[in-house]
């Protein structure tokens, strides 16, 4: 069901069966992924996730310098296991999903850090705010031709206008948000 935002056309290697082909592009395997965010409420850790997102990651052979990454998350897919809270998070004080149905990340460059480690620099857009961030991640080929992408980033939610009005209070709702992602990838086609 997951729609892939970025199309295929990018890669002439799309039909290559080899998992580490040069500048190969990958997309998430539907249903095998998570984007989890952790913040705090009243001093206790609080977790939720986004269940619907799409993206593509392309890594060049060896150095990976010429790679790129694009991710878009459906903000309305926020899920905290508390339906009442999910409704509030979709509302105007938080993600305002009616006005901003997508949150996105678009890379500017990907640096290989050695081994399976990389760092991507790019622009994160939440609501009406776009800021440049650097995100380290690992890219691990798995048997069967797939791969796994894991990483985490953190930011201050108020920098992105997440939590307006009464929710600006950072004593009760933490400002710092950590996002971890673990995504199973399949060659894009």
């Amino acid at each position: 069901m997951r729609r892939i935002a970025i199309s295929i056309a990018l890669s002439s290697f799309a039909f290559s069966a080899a998992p580490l082909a040069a500048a190969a592009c990958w997309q998430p395997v539907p249903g095998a992924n998570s984007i989890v965010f952790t913040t705090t409420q009243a001093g206790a850790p609080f977790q939720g996730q986004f269940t619907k997102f799409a993206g593509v990651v392309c890594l060049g052979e060896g150095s990976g310098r010429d790679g790129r990454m694009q991710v878009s998350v459906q903000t309305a897919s926020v899920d905290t296991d508390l339906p009442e809270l999910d409704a509030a998070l979709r509302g105007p004080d938080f993600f305002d999903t009616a006005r901003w149905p997508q949150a996105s990340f678009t890379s500017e460059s990907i640096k290989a850090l050695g081994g399976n480690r990389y760092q991507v620099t790019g622009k994160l857009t939440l609501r009406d705010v776009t800021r440049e961030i650097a995100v380290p991640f690992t890219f691990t080929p798995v048997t069967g031709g797939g791969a796994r992408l894991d990483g985490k980033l953190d930011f201050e939610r108020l920098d992105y206008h997440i939590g307006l009005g009464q929710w600006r209070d950072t004593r009760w709702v933490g400002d710092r948000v950590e996002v971890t992602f673990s995504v199973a990838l399949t060659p894009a086609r």
Partner: protein
Amino acid sequence: MVPLLNTRERYGLIAQLFHWIIVVLVILQFVLGFTAHGLPISLERLILLARHKSIGITIFVLVVLRLAWRLYSQPPPLPPSSHPLSNTAARLSHALMYALLLAMPPVGWLLSSASHLTVAWFGLFSLPNLVGPDKRLANAMLLTHESMAWLLLATVSVHVLAALWHHFLLKDAVLLRMLPFTRRATGKQ
């Protein structure tokens, strides 16, 4: 001056402190719990419930210490004039209040855990989640917690009426012996 330990005639300072501090905290719990219950998702509700949870943990610890103290320092016996039936009623209602005060915090903890909300003590440390998110369990625990609150309110009402009955109708010292500022704790027979 009230002695620290319980005597044959009256409760000592330690037992009285336990009693009256728990009285104040339980009243706060009712106010916080019922106020929060009527509110939609909001920062105010988050704050009220955070305090409710912190105070609940505090009450649980105080009740455990209080029971330990009760074992160490025997409470004064009921007046020999009182009816065996009223003695039994007193023992039963005391046991029920202790049972509810001990059971309500863990039920609330379970309710929070099942609701995917971690419990913290005044933001200083958090308790582990007892179970994963589970809406049915959360609903059952909410109903249990509420029913226990009503039962506690009923039992406390009986307790207060009984104390007043002892004081004003039986004219014994049962109420006075739990009050810190009364000189004479032995009632007129």
